[in-house]
């Protein structure tokens, strides 16, 4: 049993190391945030029901799109368009569930001479929210497929293709929204169920809002993440397609020489990323209640890349795991939560995150030699002391 465990940790060295880092973070946060009379485990503000729910909700959303980006990174590609795509899909989603006259891009509010904008805004139909969800998933998937074909089939550089996506989706969403906030409140539909499914907890969905229990601390986004992660794990680590993804990421030429259509495999990875982004975009939009197109989802693509890299994906391709991506995401979110709870300036949050990622990756690559040198120093110190004695 213990030997099996050791074997497992050796095989998944990166994941084990990052899991250790995560545990340390959680321990530090738990015991640095204890206060008398706090309602959480060990009196910790980190382990109150509300905080746990908040953290897991964010892990859910970030985890879903990070899985998509991680799969793309395993093909030796990159997807920079995630955050902008979320803003675009958020605007479209809210437009789809609100009447045309209340949309900020409507001719009533818009002063632009450019007629395309009010025309477009006017012609986006108002549909029921389940239809809107479906449309968003389809748009996201198609955009992913388009980027994938450009990278896989036309052999354009992934960085450039998705950088163009990053700029243009953000631009289009600001254009559609007339550069102002789009509110979920303008809808005339009853969105209670959508809100429960998007921003509620598993307990809310199963037993209704009034009931209180442990399941009420499990947000639906986390449930979706678990489901998507299990499916993604099976696809990536057990299926033929997953093997092709790793093969194409490692050595595209040799994979081609084995008769595999690597262009299609790569395109499909971007399609998955597009789908995952769209899937995460809906709860993110419902949770925030409005979409401010110039900031909604900003830097999400970079958090996704950071999560994937922390979790053991190599930007050179062919390396990584779903479990690792989940751990990476969790580290990022817990870190940010820690910064908040410990009362550090929120503005420093990203700097601290950057620092921890850097140290984590540094230790992963050169940890052994750093430790050896450190041990060497200690030995020498002790050696001198012994001589002196």
């Amino acid at each position: 049993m213990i030997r099996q465990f050791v074997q497992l940790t050796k095989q998944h060295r990166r994941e084990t190391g990052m899991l250790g880092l995560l545990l340390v973070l959680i321990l530090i946060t738990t015991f640095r945030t204890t206060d008398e009379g706090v309602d959480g485990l060990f009196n910790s503000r980190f382990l109150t029901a509300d905080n746990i729910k908040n953290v897991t909700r964010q892990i859910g959303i970030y985890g879903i799109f990070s899985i998509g980006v991680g799969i793309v990174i395993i093909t030796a590609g990159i997807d920079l368009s995630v955050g902008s795509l979320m803003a675009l899909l958020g605007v479209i989603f809210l437009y789809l569930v609100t009447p045309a006259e209340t949309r900020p891009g409507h001719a009533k509010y818009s002063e632009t001479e450019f007629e395309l904008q009010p025309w477009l805004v006017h012609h986006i139909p108002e549909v029921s929210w389940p239809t809107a969800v479906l449309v968003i998933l389809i748009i996201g998937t198609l955009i992913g497929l388009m980027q994938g074909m450009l990278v896989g089939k036309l052999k354009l550089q992934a960085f450039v293709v998705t950088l163009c996506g990053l700029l243009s989706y953000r631009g289009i969403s600001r254009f559609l929204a007339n550069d102002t906030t789009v509110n979920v409140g303008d809808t005339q539909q009853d969105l209670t169920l959508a809100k429960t499914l998007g921003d509620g907890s598993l307990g809310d969905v199963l037993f209704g809002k009034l009931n209180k229990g442990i399941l009420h601390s499990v947000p639906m986004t986390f449930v979706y993440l678990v489901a998507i992660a299990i499916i993604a794990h099976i696809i990536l680590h057990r299926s033929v397609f997953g093997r092709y993804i790793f093969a194409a990421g490692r050595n595209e030429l040799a994979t081609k020489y084995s008769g595999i259509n690597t262009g299609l495999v790569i395109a499909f990875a971007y399609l998955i990323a597009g789908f995952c982004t769209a899937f995460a975009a809906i709860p993110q939009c419902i949770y925030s209640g409005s979409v401010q197109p110039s900031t909604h989802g900003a830097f999400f693509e970079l958090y996704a890349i950071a999560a994937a890299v922390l979790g053991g994906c190599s930007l050179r391709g062919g390396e990584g795991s779903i479990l690792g991506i989940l751990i990476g995401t969790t580290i990022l979110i817990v870190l940010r939560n820690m910064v908040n709870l410990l009362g550090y300036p929120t503005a420093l949050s990203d700097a601290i995150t950057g620092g921890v990622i850097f140290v984590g990756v540094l230790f992963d690559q050169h940890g052994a030699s750093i430790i050896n040198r450190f041990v060497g120093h200690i030995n020498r110190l002790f050696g001198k002391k012994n001589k002196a004695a």
Partner: protein
Amino acid sequence: MRGIHKRFPGVHALSDVDLEIAAGEVVAIIGENGAGKSTLMNILGGVHQPNSGTIEISGTATKIRSVSEADAHGIGFVHQELNVLDNLDVGANVFLGREPRRFGLINRRKIAADTTPLLARLGLEIPPETPLSELSIGQQQMIEIAKALSKQARIIIMDEPTSSLTLTETERLLEVINDLREEGISVIYISHRLGEVRQCADRVVVLRDGKNAGELQRGEIEHDAMVSLMVGRELKRSAHERNEQEALTDGLSIINLRTTTYPDCEVNFQVKGGEILGMAGLVGAGRSELAQTVFGVDPAMGGSITLEGLPIQLGSARESIRSGIYLAPEDRKKTGLILEFDISQNISLASLKDHCSRLAIINRSSERNEAQRQVDALKIKTPSTATTAMNLSGGNQQKVVLGKWLSMSPKVIIFDEPTRGIDVGAKAEIYKLMRALADEGVAIWMISSDMEEVLGISDRIVVMHEGRITGELEHVEFSEEAVMHLAVGGRQVNAA
């Protein structure tokens, strides 16, 4: 250069080679692939260091420890693969790394002023500001020569300078070599093209198996004399010969096939089921490209292929693999294997569909069992099928590539340089495997630059030269002279 020895791990590339060049002399160095021509030149050019031996320049013993030292001694090297930057202009290329400066900035005027007379010397009438990308390959090569001249080179080494030149460009280059000779500059000219050698060389030095095999003076430089000096080795015939009782099947036919490398050459030949067809030729003859086109990883410019009489779609490796045409490529590490994958993952890569459930989930035990079967059958030396391909020796890596194809149902296997970089013991095993496959009725098409291998293993040999098949030899006609004659572009003489 006197008594030069050079050993690479496992190979004695040069043993006791002498070479002497007078000022203003054009010396051609010829020899088969692997005879040591390039190694010798790399030593003179400072790329490699000799294990022993001396180099004297103008009577003083010298050590050439680096390319820049070679530069300082006036030795210029024009490599077969051009080392020019086509994003820069002519002048910038000529003075790359030695840019004249003024106020810390590049002095463009001086570059232009110094480059123009150099270009004129080489008969190039182009302004020094021309972007290199607008020049033909032949002109780019002239720029390399100009670069050597600008460093006051007294000896210019040209490694296969005409391999990618057109006929007129070649003639222009030979004229330039003549002009250089008249200016007192020595030229060392390495080429497989004996016609050019006869045209321009004052003296021919022949290398064979890393040794001096002889010299020919101006009057003695003749095609046959050069070929017999290049060859001249007794060959052991292989013990494994085709079982004559077995009838050959139709196998793979290649009809009017044109590749992207030689789009004007139509190739026709047949590999029969049950035979080993050796394909000989010099480096650059277009053999690997032909194999890649047949296998479908390179697009075809025209023509068709049939397998057992049925047409096969070109341009799709998937289609070829489905029909049973497999390629064990030249570069195992880049195209044959995924080095970071383990043995079983490499073996199953092309046949995963046979090891998965209906939902495309891989059945790992079925995958591993098949890999184990191949490991046992091919005697791959490894602790387990979970060993990473990177950690295997060259011979075992080649066997893993083979295992990938043998786990399916091969009809044709193309071996491109199957034993390159493999030790002698593993070589023999691979030959035995090839023979066993042929006996089972598989058509084996073996591309090889190793003369001994081609003559020893093949049942029949076709020879390629610059994209064309220049001849076909039946077993009774096998001889090193015959193959070499065809490989350098000679016509086939029918044995009467």
